[in-house]
């Protein structure tokens, strides 16, 4: 692997009495797709929020960007570095239209402070066209969009700022077949353009299709870092659940591993 753009070490995060992350290490390089895996509540979304500045980490951890130590204490810190995030709980303003949401916090301006709606709308149109997204009108409030359309808007939003690292927290969970394929294509395109991509997904088929490396979290701790091409499905599942004897393996034994064959295509 080339040198990492983003490198975290010893990251912890506590919410009240809950230690969501303890002493986690993580890194992404340019042109690399890293899958972040783990069971429900393992701390994946929390790690994403630490990196994106939405929930800054506890003191003690170290974050390096291009090898230089940086602090990420707010979403704008992360944006300035070039980190774009698609949150699991979509961060859209339902009362604003699509264009306004796409450019929120990043508005194109004419004179000091005044919005350049024309520029924003045409760029939004180009961007959505390039993602093959069809939405009847860009001037409807996002509350009226379908779940998948909202997801696409959230993804498109993160791409406007020319980020170097893109993090997608379960981007395909709400998407139809065609849109899922588009998002996977998009992830590959981002990688080919030299972006670092962090993908969280519970869908192992998606992960195997696009990821180069899988980082596994379990109960808020690192539980393994595997090159996808050389690791079997069972190994990853064992890392996620923490045991070779786990619900998934028991089930596959019972059903004659047919479950695996279909899931791990």
């Amino acid at each position: 692997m080339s040198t990492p753009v983003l490198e975290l070490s010893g990251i912890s995060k506590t919410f009240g009495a809950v230690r969501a992350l303890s002493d986690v290490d993580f890194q992404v390089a340019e042109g690399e797709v890293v899958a972040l895996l783990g069971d429900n509540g393992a701390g994946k979304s929390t790690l994403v929020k630490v990196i994106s500045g939405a929930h800054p980490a506890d003191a003690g951890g170290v974050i390096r960007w291009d090898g230089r130590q940086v602090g990420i204490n707010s979403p704008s810190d992360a944006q300035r570095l070039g980190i774009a995030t698609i949150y699991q709980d979509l961060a859209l303003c339902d009362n604003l239209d699509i264009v306004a949401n796409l450019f929120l916090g990043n508005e194109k301006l004419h004179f000091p402070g005044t919005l350049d709606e024309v520029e924003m709308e045409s760029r939004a149109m180009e961007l959505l066209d390039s993602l093959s997204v069809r939405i009847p009108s860009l001037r409807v409030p996002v509350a009226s969009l379908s779940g998948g359309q909202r997801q696409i808007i959230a993804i498109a939003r993160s791409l406007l700022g020319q980020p170097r690292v893109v993090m997608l927290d379960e981007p395909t969970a709400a998407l139809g077949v065609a849109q899922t394929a588009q998002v996977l294509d998009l992830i590959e395109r981002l990688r080919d353009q030299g972006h670092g991509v962090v993908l969280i997904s519970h869908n192992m088929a998606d992960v195997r299709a696009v990821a180069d490396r899988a980082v596994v979290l379990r109960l808020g701790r690192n539980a393994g870092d595997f090159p996808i091409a050389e690791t079997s499905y069972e190994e990853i599942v064992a890392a996620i659940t923490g045991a070779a004897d786990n619900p998934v393996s028991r089930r596959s034994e019972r059903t004659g591993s047919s479950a695996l064959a279909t899931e791990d295509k």
Partner: protein
Amino acid sequence: MTQQTPVSKASGEGGAAPAEPMRDPRLLTTVASPKGWLDALRRRLRGGELGPIPVIVGLLLIAVVFQSMNDRFLSPQNLSNLTVQIAAIGLMTTGVIMVLLLGEIDLSIGSVAGLSAAVLAVLAVKQGFPEWGAIAAAIGVGLLIGLVHGTVFAKLGVPAFVVTLAGLLGWQGVHLYLMGSDGTINTSPNGAIAMLTQTYFVPFMGWAIAAITVILYTISVFVVERSRRRARLPYKPPSEIVFRAALLSLPILGGVWVLNQYKGVPLAFLIFVGFVVVLDLVLRKTRYGRMVYAVGGNAEAARRAGINVDLIRISVFGIASTLAALGGIMLVSRNFAASVSTGGGAELMMAIAAAVIGGTSLFGGRGNAYSALLGGLVLGAITSGLLLLQMDTSVRFMITAAVLLIAVIIDAISRRGRKSHARGGA
């Protein structure tokens, strides 16, 4: 999958885009003709996007009813007085709207108006300050109070309801303290303070202001639509722009015409409308306004988008209290006096009611500055009409309550068919 344009490239330059990007077949387009506009209007009405239509209909209804009961209601003199009367509470409403857009409430505006009135009168009359200085000081006090409210709310996380409830009590206390043993302090009937509500523009000035407004509006829409056409975005054809300009000039020119029959356009009304227009432009056309709507719609999303949510909140409360202070100054100007009861009556309730009647949601993120003007006109017309009929405050409160309820009910019903404005998740 069908298109392989790299994302960053496509978003950086438009050259590669197909000549006429295919529109979604589900998008209904408006045909540029009176029939087309009527169809579009009908579609909007059926979709529940009523906009200002119910308020305008209500206003016309009120006018017809009162005029039929007393033919002095629509007289230029009565209408002119009405516009001066609504200026004070109208300014307070304009501030409240900003706070409502955030999804918060400011209960202190009446007390702040009262305190600003007291500061004004004490400085100008008792301390012998020049009147302009006293006005500036009163506005400054309002701004300061708002910043305090906003800071306690945003930084310490105390609900705005509680912060401003404390303000409601506390600032009224300071108000009474400043007034001391005086129940009322009379201000000069011909200084700068009195001028605010006693000045009327000569007819020519009224016409000039109206004409400039309409022309500026038309030109700016024209420029925007031309650049939209150049950018190959959906745009309004010139015929529609002219139609809209005509629609806008109807109330503006009509209003000036009526007001000119009496003393001319009142300065106080112009100040109020000026603030409404400026605030509307700020809300719709500037980055700051976009941020206000964003925080009101989803504060967490706004925060994650890098918006300084605290700063927006503090500034909005600052604006609200500043406008409340201005309202207090107008109250003094109209009564030639500040009293212990200035701003302590129905002002707060009327200001919030006007905002809601005008169409601003109490739940944040939805509404516009013009609701202050429309809501203020509705409440002002009711007050003025009942005064002409010599009904007293009890009736006024009951009727105002009914109108407020009707406004909210219409909004609730129209919103059922309008998921597009619903708040909350998909």
